[in-house]
């Protein structure tokens, strides 16, 4: 009786871990998709609305999305700062663990922070489309990886549980 409860427990734990890892794989494309959405909002506000960076950040921070806290922190710290790209970079490094993004994804966002607000509308248009293009590539790659590893992680979770149970019996 005890051994079957123990086996069930081990199996549940490894399955839970497997599903947890699979879930993490799913988060990256979700965040990348959300960044793409946020970029399109920024582009519209800046290119067509000529809104200030401060206003754009304030607007996005009120939306019910995962990235709202990132833009809220920028909005709050911007007032006393002298360099926007530093504020952006600092906010990225504070939030990077909760974004589930890879180093290359973060690098694209850092580069965007270095040009935001510094140039003309036309230059911004170019930078937004370039960033969207890079993020799309990263997104497609992330979707592929997710498809590839999600099932594997789930399967490995269940199978490793079974293996441990078998070895213990």
């Amino acid at each position, binding site marked *: 009786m005890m051994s079957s409860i123990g086996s069930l427990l081990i199996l549940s734990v490894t399955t839970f871990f497997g599903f947890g890892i699979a879930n993490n794989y799913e988060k990256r494309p979700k965040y990348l998709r959300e960044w793409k959405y946020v970029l399109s909002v920024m582009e519209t506000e800046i290119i067509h609305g000529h809104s*200030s*960076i*401060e206003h754009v950040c304030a607007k996005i921070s009120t939306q019910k999305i995962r990235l709202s806290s990132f833009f809220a922190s920028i909005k709050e710290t*911007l007032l006393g700062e002298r*360099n926007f790209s530093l504020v952006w970079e600092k906010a990225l490094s504070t939030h990077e663990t909760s974004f589930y993004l890879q180093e290359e994804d973060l690098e694209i966002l850092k580069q965007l922070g270095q040009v935001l607000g510094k140039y*003309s509308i036309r230059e911004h248009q170019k930078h937004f489309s370039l960033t969207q293009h890079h993020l799309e590539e990263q997104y497609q790659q992330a979707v592929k990886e997710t498809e590839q590893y999600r099932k594997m992680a789930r399967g490995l979770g269940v199978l490793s549980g079974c293996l441990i149970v078998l070895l213990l019996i």
Partner: protein
Amino acid sequence: MLPPSYKEEIESLENIDEIQEIRIRIGRPLEVVRRHVPLFLPPVGTREAIDQIVGRATHFSVYRFQDDIKKGFLTVKGGHRIGLSGEAVATGEKISNIEPVSFLNIRVAREARVRQQAWMETLLSKRRLLNTVIVGPPYSGKTTILRQLTKWLSDDRSAGFKVSMIDERSELAACYQGLPQLDVGKRTDVLDRCPKSEGISLMIRSMSPEVIVVDEVDGEEDTMALKRAIGAGVSVLCTTHADDWEGLEYRLGSLFPYMERFVFLPRLNQNHRSLVIYQNTYEEVKRVDLL
């Protein structure tokens, strides 16, 4: 707006309220001008410092101020003006941008310098403002006098005039998000950052003004628009850069004969301390001591 090292140096000076200009040049010492006397301070201008000042002045949104940058200046909260110079990017015959900026001149907006206001009555006739131009070289305080006159016309009279101000460079009313930061009078409506020629027509159509106020008239478009305003029965109050009558006639062109009062301001220095009002027959109407 200024980097901390610059701020500390400037704040350690005596009589900081007399500062007229703060000039920053890459690789050269910080220059502070008080009463036309330059003073050089230790911090050397850097690209980073200039980028930071421009960033703060534009709220990190340079694209919103592109039209101003093309013209070589930015106006910040409080009515102060930042002159820009560096590498001009030209598209055809016109400047499309200044990038990178390597020289900054922060012109501090000054308080009114005129002690008494009785002279302003000489600009009125039968409850109407005579078409008036304030004339002077750069740094003579034209904009300050114009602002003071506008406030007086709008406020201080029993009924006050309905005044429409077209503030192309945001220097007169120093609007921030559409609201004047400087007092330009209770009956004054401000059209901020609009080209003068278009703004004059728009305000005449929409706000039925008795007086149109514009700064720095230059070029045929401006003078034609002001002539249209005079033709519509609206009084004109404006400023222009000139040192003498010849320069003034050149600046105003065909508008010159329509002007009825000319307020000549001297360059700010110790030797000249009075403004002179002339009427259109070149006769002196009044001479006023300045502070």
